[in-house]
């Protein structure tokens, strides 16, 4: 019952909004190059289905690759920080600088350095930079949060650093790491889109490029179709990572436990 309600209510809102939109566009004769009706957007989606799907695949590939790269790099860096306070103090400020510098500002540099002939690599690097920080921050916080007494126990039993890391620190870090990954998943998509925008039309072939191109040609319905696909992709990434989080934490973490026994 609760599940049905959780899905039904947002869906009802969507139907109401789409219905009102459709009605308003027809009633006031809004030109299609200003605001196309939902039906026109659906038609544009159907007409351009294969090319939109190719664009989606391109953007999604960049996003997933960037997300994986950011996760590996973020966790590896956090582990290095957890092993050496000196390393953390030395390098963390640069991680912050990387985070606070607007990616739009460094994207052109990366595109030039990597080269337009390797455009997908450049896009992936840019999206990785965007997604990197929440993973680093989540993993660093988690690795540091390990129970001191449990760490003392590993010392008592003569455990190696690797054992302590594997058995105590990494599991402790899992909840904050997963929370960082949820943020990073959305950011990777945003990074991929921003990178495509900066790269401009002609070289990149993803959804953002379709948006720019459709805008230039005043094909607003196609623009909306691409936009809808982007939004759906973002929601899907978030849902997938939430599912992963629930699955990994379901037995023990308060955040994932719904029915209290």
């Amino acid at each position: 019952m609760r599940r049905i309600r959780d899905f039904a209510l947002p869906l009802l809102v969507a139907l109401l909004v789409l219905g009102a939109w459709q009605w308003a566009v027809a009633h006031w004769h809004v030109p299609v190059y200003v605001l196309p009706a939902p039906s026109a957007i659906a038609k544009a989606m159907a007409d351009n289905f294969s090319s939109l799907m190719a664009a989606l695949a391109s953007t999604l590939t960049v996003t997933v690759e960037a997300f994986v790269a950011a996760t590996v790099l973020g966790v590896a860096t956090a582990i290095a920080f957890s092993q050496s306070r000196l390393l953390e103090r030395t390098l963390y400020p640069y991680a912050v600088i990387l985070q606070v510098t607007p990616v739009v500002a460094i994207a052109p540099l990366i595109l030039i350095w990597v080269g337009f002939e390797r455009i997908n690599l450049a896009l992936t690097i840019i999206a990785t930079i965007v997604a990197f920080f929440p993973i680093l921050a989540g993993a660093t916080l988690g690795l540091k949060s390990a129970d001191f007494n449990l760490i003392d126990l590993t010392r008592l039993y003569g455990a190696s650093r690797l054992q302590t890391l594997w058995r105590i620190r990494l599991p402790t870090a899992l909840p904050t790491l997963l929370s960082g990954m949820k943020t990073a998943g959305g950011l990777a998509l945003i990074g991929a889109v921003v990178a495509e925008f900066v790269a401009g039309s002609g070289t990149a072939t993803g959804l953002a490029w379709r948006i720019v191109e459709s805008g230039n040609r005043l094909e607003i319905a196609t623009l909306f179709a691409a936009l809808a696909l982007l939004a759906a992709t973002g929601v899907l990434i978030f849902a997938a990572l939430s599912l992963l989080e629930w699955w990994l934490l379901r037995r023990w973490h308060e955040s994932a436990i719904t029915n209290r026994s």
Partner: protein
Amino acid sequence: MIALQGVGKRFANGTEALRGLSFHVAAGEFVSLLGPSGCGKSTALRLAARLLAPDSGTIAYPDGKPEIGFVFQEPTLMPWADALTNARLPLDLKRLPRQEADAQAAGALARVGLTGFERAYPRELSGGMKMRVSIARALAARPKLLLLDEPFAALDEITRNALGDDLLRLWREDGLTVVFVTHSVGESSYLSQRVLVMTPRPGRVHADIALPAGRDTRLSPGTIEAQRGISDALSTAMAA
């Protein structure tokens, strides 16, 4: 089993926790370390396990360093692991083969009355059961020396008494040496053979009280008599 001689410890924030702490514990003894909050009892126990290094004095194991089990005031379990995995931690860290480790950990859980709860997660267990898992973990590696840091302080009286009796049974069965940190006169008078009463910070041993036999229950005349002696010593320790 263990001998501390003139041990001093000051923390980084300048607090002097211990000054001139000396005591020894013979093999097979059950000794309580009793004192007011903040007198450095826990620090003394960590020093005894060599989890801390002293600033001065020595900590020696005359018969060689024994296998040590340590029980904290909190259960300190891994929330992501079930009871068996928690109890198995020392054996995993010592890289015992999984089958052997599982059997040994299951045995330890059985000894604290948790058979059937091997697959339960800490959040599914009561406070007393969590503490039992913690004790099972300390026993899993078959220690000679068991160090307990106010292990029952956070439990209700009924659970505390049950666990105290279990601890006594385990001590007798295994021929363990136990050092039991507590701030409860009642607990120390019933459980231990000897009570070391500590002064307020910086802590040292104020009185070393050997308790006679005849303390079969918590209300035996011998137990009550022991409490009187311990309380008197504690009063003078607080005034010292």
